Every structure is written in C-alpha cells, then in structure tokens.
C-alpha cells in the first residue's frame, strides 16, 4: 500500500483557513525557514481514503477477540468518547481562572475519590500519563520519603523475576539498583529468597498481585510485612488490578504506593499505544510528596509532565466508573476472572497451563513440551491465530515461563467468543501434529507475511525516502 507521501500532488490542498485579516508580520530574515517541510499535498478525500485504507490493515478490540495478556483489552464504551468530546471539556484552557474550571476540577476530585476507594489509598495524583510513568512517579514518592527522613542509604529496589520490564526500568530511572528475586514453583514470590535480600538498604519492593502469571500471591500479607520490618515501602503495580476490584484492595494488603492503568482497568481506549493514564495513589504519610503543576503552583516539589494529566482520558475512566458503580466494578473483576478460568478450562487436554491451578484474570500456557513434540513454537501458534481473525496473546512473557503464551480474555467477552477461541486453539493444537509446516509459515491471510525484523534493525529505514 502507498505511503501518504506517494499520494501527494503538487499544488493540491484542503481549504481550511480564511485569508489573513491583519497586516502580515514577516518572520525576520535571519529566522526564516528556507526550505519548507515536505508534507503531503492532498485533498480531504485523499486524506480520508488513505486513513480508511490503513484502518483496514489494523485490528482493535472492536474488530475481534484481543486476549493480549497484561494489557486488559476490554471493550471501550462509545459513550465515554462522546462525553470526553464535550466542548465544555475539550475547550478549557489548563490555566484558565479557577472559577471557570469548576467542572474540570470536579472531574479530577471525583476521579481521585473513586480510585482511592477502589484501591484503598488515601490520596492520589492524576498527572502521570501512562503505567510506566506512574511507576516512575510512585518510585519517586518512595525515594523522596527516604531522602526527607535523611535515610540516604536506601539505594535498592527489589523486583521479582516475573515482573514487567517497566518495573526494573523505572527503578533504574530513579537511580536505584535493582535486586531481582526468583519466583517459587507457583510463580509467586519465594519468601526465603525475599528474606535473603532484605536489608536496611532496601528502599522498597515492586509487586503486581495477581502477578504476571495470573496468580494471586497468597503470602501477600507476609511479604508486605517483611518489607516494612526492614523499613522499606511496598509498591503495587496496578497492571493487574482488573482481577480484584471490589474483592480486595491493595491498600488493605499493605501496599504504600500504587499506580493504576486507566487505559486497562478503567476501559479507556489504548489508541494504538496511548494516550493512557497512570494515576498514582499513596497512603497518608506520603501525600506531601505527590507531584503537582509548577506553572499553577510554584511551590510544587515534583512534577512529571505539564499540567494535571491526560485529562480527557481521566474523564472517560470517570464515566466508566459512574456507569458501573460499586456493584458493576466488582462484577467486572469477577467476570474477568471467570472468563480466564473458563477459557483455560476449555483448553484442557491440549495446551498445558504453566501453573495448573485457579488463575485470576489471565493465565499463561507453557508450550515447551508441545514444541518438543511438534517443532511448533509459541510464535507459530500466535501467528496462526492471526489467520483465524484473533489477536494473538502476549508471547514469551513472563520470562520465567518457556514458550509462554499469556491470555487475558477480560470480562467483556461473551461465553460464545470464549468457546469459539477455545475451538480455534484446539484446532491449531491438532494441526501442529499433522501439518506443522503451515503453522511455521503463518500467517497466510494477513496484510503481510512474517516481516524480516533483523533487517529492520540492522539497516534501519525510519522515514520515507523522498
């Protein structure tokens, strides 16, 4: 398919602006741009057809099943888009006088209140723009807390080996050294291993519970207690919050700081990779370190981006919470867990779960022995799913499971969709024994066949060659 630049015709344009009604002030010669940017010259119909064609080569939740583990690809209610597009929200300047932004402030206050209630936290900032940004902010709270107490020796953050890559990366950005703790046979924190790395140099522990293999760590109270005994704080990675809303709260499990992914748990669209929103909640004693906005509050100590956060994303999450209410929030989590367990159950006798027990909102298959028997890899299965119109699960994560495929169906998929997905997976399982070759070359019906990623990295072509 052509690039948008290849549709460009010299002299073609859209008619958008009127002619200037004041005297032209020219750019001073010394400041003038000499060569204009080579942007495409198009009419509106060229623009809309090009992007419509791109749409046909993309897959969103609205196109079909999207069980991408750890990403919570649930349905994004259309009404939330409509509410976020109200001109009385989109047309408000972030530095308008306070009396004129009461509605915006109410959105922020209500969102904080509801999110604190769901997570068991005392206060919250809505400034971080995404989950990893929230991790960075939350760890800064931990760092600021220790520094404010004059405790400068706390230089280490403990991260389980099953953690998302963002956890160690965020800790490194906060100047911490990372101590990795191994998981036990159940994919949970190995208590003895944890005890062996705990000391008074530990600033904190980062944990997601349920963890990345989709299991709720039943030793959670002991874990948070142990870290506290050594004066460390405990950070909750909210990536998997969709499993436990209304059932148990991180704040009650001993967590001091938490981030939430509004674009996962609270159903705001992922937008092809953002904008998300990663609010950070904390317990009372950390409130004073929460970031704010320098231009409207000069005394702020921390700030992680401009203004107050991805406001329109926050509106969508708030509308979603208001729609569901106390019961609906719990219903969402319960059914996310039910759907995951049901899909895992339906696969019995074919692919083997990495941990054969009740899971939370997601589960991981380990295709190690399947690969030995058939030569077909987790990647081949994933690529074969594409031909079936289903988005593949997360592949090769978490790192502690070999040939991992991680499924997170979410609560917004019906029993029929799960049954159908199970049938597709079973068919592929059988095909691997009869016709492994066709799976190794899959997909066959997609926009492209498998791309050469090595070439892309070795000889990077990162823009159009005019």
């Amino acid at each position, binding site marked *: 398919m052509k690039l948008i630049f290849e549709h460009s015709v010299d002299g073609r344009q859209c008619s958008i602006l009127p002619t200037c009604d004041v005297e032209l002030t020219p750019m001073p010669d010394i400041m003038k741009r000499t060569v204009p940017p080579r942007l495409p010259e198009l009419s509106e119909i060229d623009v809309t057809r090009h992007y419509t064609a791109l749409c046909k080569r993309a897959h969103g939740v609205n196109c079909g099943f999207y069980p991408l583990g750890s990403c919570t690809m649930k349905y994004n209610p259309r009404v939330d888009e409509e509410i976020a597009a109200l001109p009385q929200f989109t047309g408000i300047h972030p530095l308008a006088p306070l009396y004129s932004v009461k509605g915006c402030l109410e959105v922020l206050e209500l969102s904080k209140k509801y999110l604190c209630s769901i997570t068991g936290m005392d206060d919250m900032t809505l400034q971080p723009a995404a989950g990893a940004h929230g991790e960075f902010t939350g760890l800064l709270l931990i760092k600021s807390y220790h520094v404010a107490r004059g405790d400068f020796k706390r230089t280490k953050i403990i991260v389980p080996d099953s953690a998302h890559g963002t956890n160690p990366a965020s800790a490194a950005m906060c100047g911490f050294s990372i101590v990795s703790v191994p998981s036990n046979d159940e994919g949970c924190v190995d208590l003895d291993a944890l005890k062996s790395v705990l000391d008074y140099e530990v600033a904190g522990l980062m944990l997601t519970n349920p963890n990345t293999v989709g299991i709720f760590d039943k030793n959670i109270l002991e874990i948070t207690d142990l870290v506290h005994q050594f004066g460390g704080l405990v950070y909750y990675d909210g990536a998997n919050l969709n499993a436990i809303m209304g059932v148990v709260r991180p704040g009650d499990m001993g967590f001091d700081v938490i981030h939430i992914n509004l674009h996962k748990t609270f159903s705001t669209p992922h937008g092809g990779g953002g904008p998300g929103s990663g609010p950070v909640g904390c317990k009372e004693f950390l409130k004073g370190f929460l970031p704010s906005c320098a231009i409207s509050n000069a005394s702020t100590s921390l700030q992680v981006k*401009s203004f107050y956060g991805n406001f329109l994303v926050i509106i969508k999450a708030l509308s979603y919470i208001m729609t569901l209410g106390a019961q609906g929030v719990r219903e969402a989590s319960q059914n996310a867990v039910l759907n995951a367990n049901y899909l895992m159950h339906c696969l019995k006798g074919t692919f083997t779960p990495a941990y054969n027990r009740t899971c939370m909102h997601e589960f991981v298959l380990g295709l190690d022995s399947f690969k030995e028997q058939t030569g077909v890899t987790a990647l081949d299965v994933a690529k074969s799913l594409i031909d079936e119109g289903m988005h593949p699960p997360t592949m090769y994560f978490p790192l502690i499971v070999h040939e991992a495929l991680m499924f997170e169906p979410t609560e917004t998929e019906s029993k029929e969709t799960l049954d159908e997905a199970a049938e597709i997976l079973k068919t592929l399982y059988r095909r691997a024994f009869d016709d492994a070759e066709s799976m190794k070359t899959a997909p066959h019906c997609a926009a492209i066949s498998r791309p050469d990623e090595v070439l892309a990295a070795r000889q990077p072509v990162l823009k159009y060659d005019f």
Partner: protein
Amino acid sequence: MGSYVPSTQSQRQEMLKALDINSYDELYCDVPESVKLKDLLDLPKGKSELEVVRDMTAIAEKNVLFRTILRGAGAYDHYIPAIVKSIPQKEEFLTAYTPYQAEMSQGILQSIFEYQTMIAELTGMDIANASVYDGASAAAEALAMCRDRKRSVSLISLSSHPDAVKTMETYCFASNNQLKTISCKGGRTDISILESLLTDDVSAVYVQQPNFFGIFEDIDAIAQCVHKAGAMLIVGCNPIALAIMKTPSQCGADIVVGEGQPLGMPIAFGGPYLGFMATTAKNMRKLPGRIVGQTVDHDGNTAYVLTLQAREQHIRREKASSNICSNQALCALTAAVYMSTMGADGMKQAAEQSMSKAHYLQRELCKLPNVELRYEQPYFDEFLLDMPKIDQILSSLERKGILGGLPFDDGVLWCVTEKVGKDMLDLVVATCKEVLQA
C-alpha cells in the same frame, strides 16, 4: 446499574459449573480472608448510559467555555479541521494497542512511520520516534539521552516553560544527576552565563524556541558555544512556528523535542498532548520509546515493524534507554492527520497568521497609556506586556467571553492564534481601553 459484561446470568452459571464451583468467591480462594472486602466499595450505585450522559454534561456545564482564547503558555488554541477530529475516532485506531503483531497491525505501523517522517521533515532532523507523553517529559528524556560517564550535568535555560523546567528537575533528581539553570537577560537565555556554566562535565543544554515569553532565541550562537564545549544542544520547539522558522537542525541542534499539542489536539485542560522527539542518525540508538522501521516480509513485500527494540524496557529491563511503554500513539496519529490536511502551505498560513495577529494586538495594546512590551525582542505569537489594572482588564474580557492573556510575573503573557479574527482583537483593545480610561 450499567454493565459491559455480555454473558447472561445463566451463561455465567454454566461457566461456573464447568469449573466445578458454585460461586465467584471460590475463584478468589488465594485471597486472605482477613483482607477480603465484606461490603461493597464506597462508590455510588451504577447508572444507565443516559443518566451518566446527563450527570457528566451537568459537570461539564460548570465550566465556563470562552469563545475566544488569548492565552497560550503551553496550551495553544489553534483551529482543528473537522477531518482531524474524525479520523482518530475510527475504531481500528482507537481500540488497538501497541502494534506488537506486525502482520495484524500494518495500518498502525505505517501511520507511525508516516508520522516519524513528518516530524523529521518539520524539525529538519534525520529521525524521530513514535512519541512520548508531552513536551516537558520529552525534554527530560532528551537530557537522559545525552549523559555518559564523563558528562552528566545538564543545563537548562530559565526562558523555558516552568512546567518543563520542573519536569526536567524532577527527572534529574530521580537519576541523581546534577541540573543547573541558566538565567535570562532581556527575555532571552543569557549567553554569557551559559558560557560560564559550560564546564567539561556538561552533557547537554536545553533551550526553548520560541521561548516561554514567545521570543526567538539566538540558537545559532547558543549552538556554537555548546558544541565548542563538547556538549549537545537540545531545542524544544513550537511545531507551528517550525513551519516558517529556521529549523533547529540548520542551527545545529543535536536533539529537537516539543509539545505537539498545537498539531490538531484540543487544549482540553492540559491533556492528552504529544511529546515529539527527533535527532541525528548518530543518536539513533539512544532515542527512547517506540520506533517504527521499514523492512520486507517473507515474500519480499514492504512491511513495517517496531524496531531497534534492544533499547527498550521489555528487552533490556533496567538497562533500557527509558521505561516508556505506552506513549501517545493516537495523538501522534492526530498530528499526522493534521499535517497531511494542512500541508506545508496550510501550516505556513497558520503560523504566519498567528504571528501577524499577535503583532497586531501587541501594537494596538501598546498604543494605550502605560501599556508596554516588556522585552523588545523579535517574537512569534506570544508576548509579555506590562500593563496597569490587570485584574480588571481580564475580568472585563471574561465577561465578554474572552479569556485574556496569562497573568505572569506582574505582567500579562498574551497569545494569539489564527483562530481569532481582527474584529475580535479590536474588541479586546476597546475593552482594555475602556478599563484603563475608567
């Protein structure tokens, strides 16, 4: 109560039965009883879609929507063509995630590749990434790109947006790196102070163009000093100005970042916006965030993939160049649609009209008694005025549905975009005149 769970009650029972359990509670067998919630969460009851629309609209109506906005300071009210609002709402773009599965995501990947090309063109740089959170965090990420063992000190000009300054300070506090600020003289970066701060441990210098006061910095001169001292120059740019302004690349910038909001995003009480980042080919492997590259598929067809992933957190973990995962993809798409719709000529018009109208308003206001331009320097579409009766002037304007400039440092920082007509600017001048003569 609203619900998006499609399975009926009887289907849910069927599924529980298949699992050989009777209740949801049994699914949560690993949760310690002592912390399991006994009651419902402290949240209001759920509502129907219609009720939520009513309630949220009522909240929205508590805001005052000004028909004319003459305030910028990091959020710019440019005209957004209708098509730029509708295309990003297409569900395939809206409801997809990061294009990890290239075969199923060519549309998203190609749109990012096109966006990268447009940002490279606009800034004059070799390459761009797929976006970061906003202009302030882009500036902070750029500082991190430049550090090495020998050089770890960052210098930033105080003529930059206060939010960007504070964000860079926060990121440097986080990574235990030193940051020093360069003060201003006459509304611009004081180059003699910059020179005195350029020791051999300085890795990078950040300057905003046009700066927070709307004034053009002498980037050529700054680049010369910075490079002489062996450091790198990061320039934070207004993307609309770039349509008519000498590119930072031509001035010698090593990294160009900026707030992409003016490229088709509403001001929306501060977000979501768009951080763009572009740099030289030499710095390619230091660039944070997603990058899309062109390659071929197994059959030799052109294909697009996420590439150079060895920089990223999911591969490198604590050694990654940044922790960024989700970025602002849909905002980048919006910017690409904006740039495609406006074209180079349309963007030039938006830039020229913003600049011309700002100068018209400034000239007219400065004809009023005791109104003066604080800094006599060439500027783009923002300017700082010293004027009496600031509060009364702004209130009078607000009563007429006009949000005036931002009160800042005992003056007013005005901003005019192409959206505002001459008659409206004349009304602003007349209103100011009335207040000043009263």
